């Protein structure tokens, strides 16, 4: 148990600091509400439409392609962990793996799946 005490202290300290800062700004700062200020922040642009609107199904393709490639990266972690022990052989193996993924990517691009429609 004792080894967790520093973490506990850190958590308490962080909590205190955050509470202190937010309450200080609320107590000391002026508070003015305007309609523009109450809008959600959208990179400085005037916001348009509701956040709960429906998205075009076109985005599905990009999202799903992302997921597939993203999850394949999980196999890089165990490989990276023992990269040195595996040596050159492991390196070539991983090149083959990445190579196959790249072929997939080339296929997707060539098929036009990533074009903005």
């Amino acid at each position, binding site marked *: 148990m004792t080894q967790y005490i520093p973490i506990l202290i850190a958590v308490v300290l962080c909590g205190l600091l955050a509470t202190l800062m937010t309450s200080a700004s609320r107590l000391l700062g002026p508070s003015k509400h305007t309609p523009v200020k109450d809008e959600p922040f959208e990179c400085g642009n005037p916001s348009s439409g509701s956040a709960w609107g429906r998205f075009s199904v076109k985005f599905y393709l990009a999202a799903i392609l992302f997921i597939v490639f993203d999850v394949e990266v999980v196999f890089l972690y165990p490989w990276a962990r*023992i990269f040195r*022990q*595996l*040596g050159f*052989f492991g390196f070539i193996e991983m090149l083959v793996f990445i190579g*196959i993924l790249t*072929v997939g990517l*080339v*296929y997707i691009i*060539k*098929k036009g799946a990533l074009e903005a429609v």
Partner: protein
Amino acid sequence: MILPEVNWAAVMPSVILTVVGITVLCWELWMKEQDRKYLAWLSLAGVAGAALFSYTLWGRNESAFNGMLALDAYALFFNLIICLATGMTVLMSRHYVENNELPAGEYYALLLFAAVGMMLMAAATDLIVIFLGLETMSMAVYVLTGIRRQNVKANEAALKYFLLGAFASGFFLYGVALVYGVTGSVKLGEVATYISTHFSDGAGSPMLLAGMVLLIVGFGFKVAAAPFHAWAPDVYEGAPTTITAFMAVGVKAAAFASFVRVFLLSFGALHGQWEAILWALAVLTMIVGNLTALVQDNIKRMLAYSSIAHAGYLLVAMVAGGELGGAALMYYLVAYGLMNLGAFAIVVAVGKKGEPNEEFNDYAGLGFRYPGLAMMMTIFMLSLTGIPPLVGFTGKFYVFSAAVKAGYIWLAVIGVLNSVVSAYYYIRVVVTMYMQEGEKQVEPLSTRPALATAIVAATVGTIMVGVLPAKPMALARHSFASLQKPAQTASSTPKKDQAATSTPTATAPSKTPHH
């Protein structure tokens, strides 16, 4: 260095198919429209290469990749069945793909990738590799089922297959988890050792038995055994006919390959526990398959139920077990593959673009107008029924005699009775062709030489393997025996020793199970 023990020979057939598959996929992107036909020939060459390579490996008995894969006659035998199924499907597809305007590159590539998954399943001696092979195969087949994107039936078939397939994979995986939980390993050999030392009374523990039952559910789904067969008729009907043939033969062979390997190898000590379950499954599968096939009006759907019934016969062989049962199962898979591929090839031949011609009525009068086609269809139907001297008879003979010898008299009796029932719907096709009037025109086979080759090859196989069963059966026996021999690791044994130990077997395969 902690290099894993790599044995390229064990994966070489799969590697060949993978490389050819990727090439097909990419080549299509750059090729001209009229060159599409070369994709079929390239795929066929890849399949032939894989088959040839498997053939040259014959006689080796090794384990590869730290005991994850086996390179034994059993795996190679199934490699050949899978290559047979894939090669015939490519031949059937050559014009089918063109006429139905299917995306050729994706189609052939997925076909080859599915074959890779099947080969992995047949060779895997590790539950996780089996799972990966299963998923590789299934995922490719899900897409192939729905590759006719505008066809609502194909859509529905793909969706049903996908949802139920993923559901079954979940069960399979949970079974793996429970087995891993009890035995601490996913390697089939280690699981077997653990079970035989800790559960030598054959009783097992609740967790182990639950895992085993879940594995049965997973495999039962893939081989379409009742009561896990509900997807099969819809999927077989909705899928393109070529893919239906591929599914009926390839998927079933691969699923049985690892089903048998897992249960006879790993759970051999628990034989008393699972044989009762499989007994019931076999009986139910035969009865449900045959009785429902009686009332079908669509040929593809009838063949789907017939394939369920055949899964039942295969389960009979599996329950019988032992060298006889195992060899009978492998022989029956070859027999079933030949006659079913042939029957589906005829269905492909009768169909036209926009006019599938899959109803019984569409076959009326075929016997007078296309005597050759009808005669070959008759041969396949008679063989499926189990009429001597065709291959279906020999296969059933081996299966049921193995069951009798193993003491499962009732199972054999039920099987024979079911065969009798099945005669009704198979003969019905023949009767429709020869005794009813019909006008349907069939595009002459001479315009589709690849398809004609497939049909003739299947016919010759159906007759030859049936008339001369000794060689293939000896091969099946030898292959099955390799399953029980402990495999050596490639690194620990020098090459010379292996050659020496396998000399009596190296001469055996003078003829491959397909021709």
